């Protein structure tokens, strides 16, 4: 039986693996996709202590090598269920079942979809959830960003440097984004704000060619464009674990800074936890805290 089973090999999960291994606990990390999580998409990290510049790929790879060198085992399988029977936790994947004394859920989050018909089919053919990843394909083209938070406004600013024209579509008048960034965006001549409106249809042949937006009074407008970037928040990947972890209305795992959940021996770390600041450094910090809590639980 594994001492500490970690679900998710992002910065939180891999940091937890380092802490648990250094305490000589056996560690298994399960990951549905590739190690690294969301940070892999970041071309240049500039806000992590000590390293002034490092790519997300290099950061993730070095963290992975560090955890592996300490003896953490990695398996690339998706955890679909966690069963708790007293002190024994069983983590279920499509292929296997793993028993563990403690589990740290560090599954992170996925981008929220717009929920417009045809969206899934057009991902990678004009629809995107990551401006810094896919912006380069829209040089001198027309794009729209959907959303009203910091991500949406920053994405629109980034795209305004590349694209011919950028629409910012937001369902309300007011923005959650900070005023300074918003002011920068408003100063751009190639940015048009489409407010109090939502995307109601996607038009495509082989790839996206246009969208319909509908305002709060029901007026529809057609916009021809090449790219649509959704920045309407993220969905924490906790859905499979709601039996053993309390979730808030938005789906985040309810846990305080101790990373403890309502189930003894089950902890959460990283972006899928309720918290104010979701950054690389806070994910790593969660990993350390959750692992320390797991180590303490094992000694009790």
């Amino acid at each position: 039986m594994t001492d500490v089973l970690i679900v998710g090999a992002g910065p939180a999960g891999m940091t937890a693996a380092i802490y648990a291994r250094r305490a000589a606990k056996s560690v298994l990390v399960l990951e549905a996709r590739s190690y690294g999580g969301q940070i892999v998409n970041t071309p240049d990290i500039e806000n992590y202590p000590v390293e002034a510049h490092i790519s997300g790929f290099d950061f993730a790879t070095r963290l992975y090598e560090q955890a592996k060198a300490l003896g953490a085992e990695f398996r690339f399988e998706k955890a679909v269920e966690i069963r708790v029977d007293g002190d024994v936790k069983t983590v279920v994947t499509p292929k296997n079942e793993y028993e563990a004394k403690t589990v740290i859920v560090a599954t992170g989050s996925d981008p929220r979809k717009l929920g417009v018909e045809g969206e899934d089919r057009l991902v990678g053919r004009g629809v995107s959830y990551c401006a810094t990843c896919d912006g380069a394909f829209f040089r001198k083209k027309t794009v729209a960003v959907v959303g009203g938070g910091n991500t949406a406004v920053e994405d629109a600013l980034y795209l305004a440097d590349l694209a011919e024209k950028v629409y910012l579509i937001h369902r309300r008048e007011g923005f959650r984004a900070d005023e300074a960034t918003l002011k920068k965006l408003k100063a751009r001549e190639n940015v048009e704000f489409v407010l109090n409106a939502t995307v109601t249809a996607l038009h495509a042949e082989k790839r996206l060619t246009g969208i319909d937006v509908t305002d709060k009074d029901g007026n529809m407008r057609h916009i021809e464009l090449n790219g649509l970037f959704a920045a309407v928040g993220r969905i924490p990947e906790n859905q499979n674990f709601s039996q053993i972890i309390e979730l808030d209305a938005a789906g985040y795992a309810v846990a305080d800074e101790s990373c403890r959940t309502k189930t003894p021996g089950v902890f959460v770390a990283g972006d899928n936890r309720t918290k104010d600041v979701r950054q690389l450094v806070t994910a790593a910090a969660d990993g350390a805290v959750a692992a320390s809590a797991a180590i303490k639980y094992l000694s009790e």
Partner: protein
Amino acid sequence: MVYQVNESNFESEVLQSPVPVLVDFNATWCGPCRMLKPVLEQLAEERPDVKVVSVDVDEAPELAEEYDVSSIPCVVLMKNGQEADRSVGFMPKDGLLALIGG
């Protein structure tokens, strides 16, 4: 072995290939693409019946445009010169095997 393909040899290496081809559209600056690379190399080793090629979208932007690639990594399965299927984003080996079929 994953072959580097560009506009000059796409026709001969991909469109005229007698065996199915997995075309990996990628770029050096793309993290998930770099994650996918070793997976594709392993797949190429294990499946000699499928050819695996890599297209750098910065070096061959016309190919990316022609195949409507707007997000990478994008792996396109080509059979007899025609697109049979594709997958966007990082994909573990099992997913790529499912894409190829069999």
